C-alpha cells in the first residue's frame, strides 16, 4: 500500500431518519485507499455501499446524518461545508453513476458539459479546455471525438454516454475516481469495453479507483483490494486474491457460491433439471417474424419495419429448458411475447402440440392460456400495487377456471404459496410490503397456479441480488423437476442461462446466430458473436480475469432498423445500400444439434 493514503475512512456511520424509524445504513465502516490503487466494494442491494461514498463526498440526502472520520490526504472532509468540498469534489475526487443518461444534462452537448467542468475547476481558457476535452474523449476511446463533442446525450448510446461520464470524471486529472455500478445498466460486450478503459486509466493515469458493484466478476477483473459489505458493515476486506481464494467470512463465501459462473455451470448444491426423457415436441416455432412499423418524422413520412424478430425457428420438447441469450434489442422478449400471443406476429407459425396457435378461435386461445405462462423481470412492476398478492396469484385461476368456487381458489392459492416458499398467512399483504425476491416468488406462484406445461421466464432473475437469484433459480428448477413442465429461460446473463438450460440459443438482431446444447455452446462456440459474448462475461476469479484476452467487439450494438446490420458478421455478402433487400445468413448444422449462422 502507498505510504500516504488518498482517502482514509474511519468509524463511518450513516443514519437516515425515515417515517418508519431510523435506518442505520452504514455501521462503523473503515478502510483506506492508496495512490493508484483500485478498491472494489461489493455487496447486495441495501448493503450501504453507495451511501458510504455519498456520505464521504458530502452528497448525502437531507435526511441522512454521517458521523466518524473521512480524510482526504490527511484533511478531514466529513460534513465539511460545500464551499470547502467543492475545491476538490469534481476535480480531485470525481464520481460516475450507474445511469449515464440521468447523470448528463439533456440540453447540453457532451462536449459543452466536459468543457464546463474543466473551466469551473481549472480555469482553463475556452480553446485549451476544448483541446483537453477532445483529449480525454480520445482517452476513453470515443471514435471521432470532435464530432461526438457536438452531440447531445440522447444521441449517444448507453456505452458512449458512460464513456463521456468517465471522460468528464478524469478531465481534471483526479486522484480518486468513485465508480458506482458503472456498468450495471450496460450490455456485457459494452461492459467489457468500459472495464477495459477503467483498467487502462488505472495503469496510465495512476488514478485511484473505487469500484462499487454487486457483481463479483466485475470486481475480480479490476480491483487490487476488495471490501465486502453486508447490511452496512464491512464484513471482510483484503487483497483481491485473499477474498476470492481464501474467503474467511461466511457471507463472502456465500456470495462467491451463489454467483453463477460461466466456467463452472453447476453451482455447489445446485441441481440441474434432468434432461428430458420424453421426445414429444411441445412447441414448434417456424420462421417467426415480428415487425413493428416505425414511422419517420412528419405526417407523410414512410414507415419502416423494425425487425424485432426476423425469422426464428426452433422446437421445444416436453420437460426441456431452452435458454435464450442476447443483448438488449436482440428481440428476445419480443420473441417470448409473440409465442404467448401477447404481441401479434407478422409472419410464421407457432405450433403448440400439433395445433397452429394462429388458427384457434378466441375461446380455444383462452383455454390455451392455461398451458402457457410467463414470469416477468421486474417483480414489483409485474404485480398490481393495489391488489393483495393473494388476489394477484388467484387472478389467472379466476379467469381461466371460473367454475372453481371461491373457497377452492383460496385453497389452491394457499397451496401454491407454500410450494414457492411464501407463508400462506401473507395472502392479504400488498406487494410493496415484500422484498424483490419474495415478490418474484409471487410472480412464479401466479404463473404456476394454473399448472402450465410451458413457462417463459423473461429475465426472471435479472433484477435480483445474487443470493436471492440463486434461490429463485433453485425454486424454478425444483418446480420443473416436480411437474415436468418445459421452460424457455430468457436472460442477458450467460452464466445464469448456462446453469438452468438444456439447450441455448443466441440471438443477434432478431435472428439466431447459434444454437446448441448448453455445454457445446460454451465450450465450442463457432460464431464470432457467440465467442465475443462469452469472453465478455466477467468471471469471479481474478486469475482468469487477469489472463483473459478479450475477443473484442468494437462499438455498440447496431440499430435493428438498419437492414445491413444483420450482416455484420458476413460482410462479404453485404450490399451497401440501406434500402436493398439483404441476404439473410442461413443456419448450418455443423454437428448434430449444433446450428451456426453463416459468417466470414
Amino acid at each position, binding site marked *: 500500500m502507498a505510504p500516504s493514503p488518498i482517502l482514509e475512512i474511519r468509524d463511518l456511520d450513516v443514519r437516515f431518519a425515515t417515517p418508519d424509524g431510523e435506518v442505520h445504513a452504514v455501521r462503523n465502516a473503515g478502510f483506506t485507499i492508496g495512490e493508484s490503487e483500485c478498491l472494489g466494494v461489493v455487496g447486495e442491494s441495501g448493503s450501504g455501499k453507495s451511501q458510504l461514498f455519498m456520505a464521504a463526498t458530502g452528497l448525502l440526502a437531507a435526511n441522512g446524518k454521517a458521523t466518524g472520520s473521512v480524510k482526504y490526504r490527511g484533511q478531514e472532509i466529513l460534513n465539511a461545508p460545500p464551499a470547502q468540498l467543492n475545491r476538490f469534489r469534481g476535480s480531485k475526487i470525481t464520481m460516475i453513476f450507474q445511469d449515464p443518461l440521468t447523470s448528463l444534462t439533456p440540453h447540453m452537448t457532451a462536449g459543452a458539459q466536459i468543457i464546463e467542468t474543466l473551466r469551473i475547476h481549472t480555469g482553463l481558457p475556452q480553446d485549451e479546455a476544448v483541446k483537453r476535452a477532445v483529449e480525454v474523449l480520445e482517452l476513453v476511446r470515443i471514435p471521432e471525438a470532435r464530432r461526438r463533442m457536438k452531440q447531445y446525450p440522447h444521441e449517444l448510446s448507453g456505452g458512449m454516454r458512460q464513456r463521456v461520464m468517465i471522460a468528464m470524471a478524469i478531465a481534471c486529472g483526479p486522484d480518486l475516481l468513485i465508480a458506482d455500478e458503472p456498468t450495471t445498466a450496460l450490455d456485457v460486450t459494452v461492459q467489457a469495453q468500459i472495464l477495459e478503459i477503467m483498467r487502462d486509466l488505472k495503469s496510465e493515469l495512476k488514478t485511484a479507483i473505487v469500484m462499487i458493484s454487486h457483481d463479483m466478476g466485475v470486481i475480480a477483473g479490476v480491483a487490487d483490494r476488495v471490501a465486502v459489505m453486508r447490511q452496512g458493515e464491512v464484513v471482510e476486506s483484503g487483497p483481491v486474491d485473499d477474498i476470492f481464494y481464501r474467503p474467511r467470512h461466511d457471507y463472502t463465501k*456465500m456470495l462467491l457460491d*451463489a454467483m453463477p459462473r460461466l466456467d463452472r455451470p453447476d453451482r455447489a448444491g445446485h441441481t440441474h433439471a434432468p434432461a428430458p426423457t420424453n421426445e414429444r415436441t411441445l412447441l414448434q416455432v417456424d420462421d417467426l417474424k415480428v415487425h413493428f412499423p416505425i414511422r419517420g418524422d412528419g405526417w407523410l413520412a414512410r414507415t419502416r419495419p423494425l425487425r424485432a424478430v426476423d425469422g426464428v425457428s426452433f422446437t421445444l420438447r416436453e420437460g426441456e429448458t431452452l435458454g435464450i441469450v442476447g443483448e438488449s434489442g436482440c428481440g428476445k422478449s419480443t420473441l417470448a411475447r409473440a409465442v404467448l400471443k*401477447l404481441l401479434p406476429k407478422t409472419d410464421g407459425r407457432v405450433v403448440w402440440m400439433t395445433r397452429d396457435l394462429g388458427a384457434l378461435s378466441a375461446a380455444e386461445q383462452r383455454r390455451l392460456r392455461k398451458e402457457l405462462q410467463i414470469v*416477468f*423481470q421486474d417483480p414489483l412492476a409485474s404485480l398490481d400495487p*393495489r391488489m393483495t398478492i393473494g388476489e394477484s396469484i388467484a387472478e*389467472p385461476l379466476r*379467469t381461466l377456471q371460473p367454475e372453481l368456487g371461491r373457497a377452492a381458489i383460496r385453497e389452491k392459492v394457499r397451496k401454491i404459496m407454500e410450494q414457492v416458499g411464501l407463508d400462506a398467512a401473507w395472502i392479504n399483504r400488498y406487494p410493496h410490503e415484500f422484498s424483490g*425476491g419474495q415478490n418474484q416468488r409471487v410472480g412464479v406462484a401466479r404463473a404456476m397456479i394454473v399448472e402450465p406445461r410451458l413457462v417463459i421466464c423473461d429475465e426472471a432473475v435479472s433484477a435480483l441480488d445474487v*443470493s436471492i437469484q440463486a434461490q429463485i433459480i433453485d425454486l424454478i428448477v425444483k418446480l420443473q423437476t416436480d411437474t415436468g413442465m418445459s421452460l424457455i429461460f430468457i436472460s442477458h446473463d450467460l452464466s445464469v442461462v448456462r446453469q438452468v438450460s438444456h439447450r441455448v440459443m443466441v440471438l443477434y438482431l432478431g435472428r439466431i446466430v447459434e444454437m446448441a446444447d448448453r455445454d457445446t455452446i460454451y465450450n465450442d462456440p463457432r460464431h464470432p458473436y457467440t465467442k465475443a459474448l462469452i469472453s465478455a462475461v466477467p468471471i469471479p476469479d481474478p486469475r482468469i480475469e487477469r489472463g483473459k484476452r478479450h475477443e473484442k467487439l468494437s462499438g455498440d450494438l447496431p440499430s435493428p432498423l438498419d437492414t445491413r446490420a444483420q450482416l455484420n458478421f458476413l460482410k462479404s455478402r453485404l450490399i451497401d445500400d440501406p434500402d436493398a433487400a439483404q441476404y439473410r445468413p442461413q443456419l448450418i448444422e455443423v454437428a448434430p444439434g449444433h446450428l451456426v449462422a453463416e459468417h466470414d
Partner: protein
Amino acid sequence: MSVPFGQDRIADVMARAVDVKGRSLWDDALRRLVRNRAAVVSIVILLLIALAAVFGPLFLAYDYSYQNYDIVSCAPDWWPDKAVLCSAGGSHWFGTDSLGRDLLVRTLYGARVSLAVGLIATVVSLVIGVSYGATAGFLGGRVDELMMRFVDVLYSIPYIFLVIILMVIFDRNFFLLFVAIGAVEWLTMARIVRGQTLSLKQKEFVEAARAGGVGNFSIITRHIIPNVFGPVIVYVTLTVPASILAESFLSFLGLGIQEPLTSWGVLIKDGADQMETAPWMLLFPATFMAITLFCFNFIGDGLRDALDPQDR
C-alpha cells in the same frame, strides 16, 4: 457454512414480518395525509362550512328571501366604522343586503349552491372523464386518436359562449348549470386519465393479467381504473374549486342562479356593486369563498403528497 445466508435472511425477514401488521397503500396514504397539518386543518374548516351550510339556516331567525325594508343595506352592530348609514340590529350578524335580507343566512344558502355546483359538476366530469379517458388510452391506436381529437375540438369551443348558448336555448335552469360546467371540466380529466392509462398499460402487471387470460373490460376495471385513482383524486380537489369559480363567474355575468335563490357568485356581484357604501356585503361571501378555495387547494396538495408512494 451451515445455513446459506440468503435463507437465513428470508427467515429473519419472515420472523419480523409476522409482527408487522399488513398495511395497504390507502392506510399509508391516510397516515401521510393526517401528518400534513395544512390538509387536516383544511378538511376541518371545510366540514364546518359544509355543516353550517346544511344545518345553519334551520337555527337562524330569518328566511333567505325575507325582506325588511326598514333596514336596507345596514351594517352589523359590531361593524367598527360607525359612519355607516344604519345599523341592522343585534340579530343580523353579517348585516343586511340592498333588499333588507339577512346576509348570514344568504351566505349560507350561497354556500349550499356553490358547494353543490362544485361537487355535482365534479362528479359529472369524473364519470365522463375517467371512463372516456381510460377507454381511449387503453384501446389506443386509431380509436384513441379519434376520441382525443374530439376532445380537442370541444376544447377549442370557448366555453362561456357554450354556456350562454345553452342558457339561451334551454332557459336559465339550475340543473343545466351543473351539466354545463361538468361538461367542460371533463375534458381535462379525460386527458389526465388517458395519459395515465397509456403509461399504465405498458406496465408488466397489465401484461401479466393478459397472459393470465383476463379480458379487456376486466383489465380496465380491475387494473387500470384503481391505479389512475391517485392522480384523479388530486385533480378532483382542483376541479371542485374550478367549478365553484365557474359558477361564480356565470352568476356574476347574470347567467347563473336566479333570485331570490343565491350563490356566492351572486352575492359577490351584489356586494361589488356597493363596495364603497356597504363593504360588508362583499366581504362576507368573498371571505367564505376564498377560504373554501384555499381549503380545497391545500387538500389537493396534501392528497398529492399522500398518494405518492415514493414520498415515504
